[in-house]
């Protein structure tokens, strides 16, 4: 019994690794953090496009953001799963598929947070920067974005926590992240679904709570 418990715990933490692909909690953390690292710049770029003075950039990007925000993440995952191979011509791994879906989906949401953050900065800041002779790009980089990102921190973290939880949708395309593994363990053990899924829930809770605390500390330091 102890041996099989150890096996299950290991399976839960790292999947079949090193005898198979990395999975479990380790994969969830990898996917979640990569998605955050990708979605943040995507969100900033989309936001900049949406507030840009050039209509030819603003309109298509706004339409794209509305389209994605009006679609369930599950659809975006399917869409990435079937669409990416068709476009690139070769099969995309589940990890990459899920990463692309999360980056695009969360990028669209983050772009609204960033846009609101930038547009919430008083007009006088832009005017002061421009009157000194700073260009639009300089004004964004040195004046607007630093202030906006600081104001946005709570909303950003909110979105980051959501992203972390959304990695569990990788289940649907057979990605061996922690929720998938938990259900695998459950179907092998059969008789203990409650403790298994409580463990899964607690695992996500600890991850998300930890992220919130780190964010809270950052927020207090930046005040």
């Amino acid at each position, binding site marked *: 019994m102890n041996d099989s418990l150890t096996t299950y715990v290991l399976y839960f933490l790292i999947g079949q690794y090193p005898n198979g692909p990395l999975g479990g909690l380790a994969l969830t953390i990898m996917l979640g953090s990569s998605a955050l690292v990708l979605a943040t710049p995507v969100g900033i770029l989309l936001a900049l496009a949406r507030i840009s003075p050039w209509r030819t950039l603003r309109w298509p990007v706004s339409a794209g953001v509305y389209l994605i925000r009006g679609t369930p993440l599950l659809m975006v995952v399917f869409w990435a799963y079937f669409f990416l191979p068709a476009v690139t011509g070769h099969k995309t791994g589940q990890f990459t598929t899920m990463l692309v879906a999360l980056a695009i989906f969360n990028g669209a949401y983050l772009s609204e947070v960033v846009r609101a953050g930038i547009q919430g900065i*008083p007009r*006088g*800041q832009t*005017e*002061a*920067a*421009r*009157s*000194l*002779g*700073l*260009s639009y790009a*300089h004004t964004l980089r*040195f*004046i607007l974005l*630093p*202030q906006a990102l*600081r104001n946005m921190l709570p909303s950003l973290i909110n979105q980051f926590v959501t992203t972390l939880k959304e990695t569990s949708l990788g289940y649907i395309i057979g990605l061996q992240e922690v929720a998938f593994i938990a259900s695998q363990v459950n179907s092998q053990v059969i008789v203990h679904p409650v403790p298994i899924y409580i463990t899964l829930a607690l695992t996500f809770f600890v991850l998300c709570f930890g992220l919130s605390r780190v964010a809270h500390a950052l927020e207090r330091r930046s005040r």
Partner: protein
Amino acid sequence: MIELRGVNKHFGSHHVLRDISESIGRGEVVVICGPSGSGKSTLIRTINRLEEIDSGQIRVDGRDIHAPGTRIDQFRSGIGFVFQQFNLFPHLTVLDNCTLAPIHLRGLAADVAEAKALALLEQVGVAEKAAAFPAQLSGGQQQRVAIARALVMEPPVMLFDEPTSALDPEMIGEVLLAIKNLAHQGMTLVCVTHEMGFAREVADRVLFMADGAILERATPADFFERPQHARTQKFLADIRSPFGRY
């Protein structure tokens, strides 16, 4: 130095600047006054193109600044602008507020820019606040920092848009003194203000605006002692006895 010719501007159906023509010479100190809503602020903001104009021409040092091909950023770095609300950058220290533009636009080394900024902060009397953030300063100190920030770029022209209107009364004097010192250094200076004492003492010329037009141009002595236009006379009477004539 500054040449406005037939300038018109509308905000929707509101004709906010009506055919303004005016010429301001090098080293001249001009005060623009008039009732609120008369277009003073809009006018001064068109001079560095914070506001676009519908027709007419504005030349600064011979350059048509509302022409399509004008490199506006380069042009603006040669005109200092001071706002009613100071508009310091709250996330930067006083010193960084002043060095940002010279470092990124003039390519000055950080230590050179800092030395220059400190000298100017000294000149306006806030050098001891160099390491502080704007929120830690009084309104008067913030506005003096804003003046130093504009001066670091060594502009030949400074524009002031109601620089003391957002200040508590006891801080108005320190800011006006800083502006007055600039005037005495021979800087070309345009100032929208309600401070008539300042206009009388420092200005070479006073422009009176109402309803988007310049109704009167005069030396301070003529303006205050012998106002020609009925609107000017009423304006002066109103500001002299704010409770009305009994």
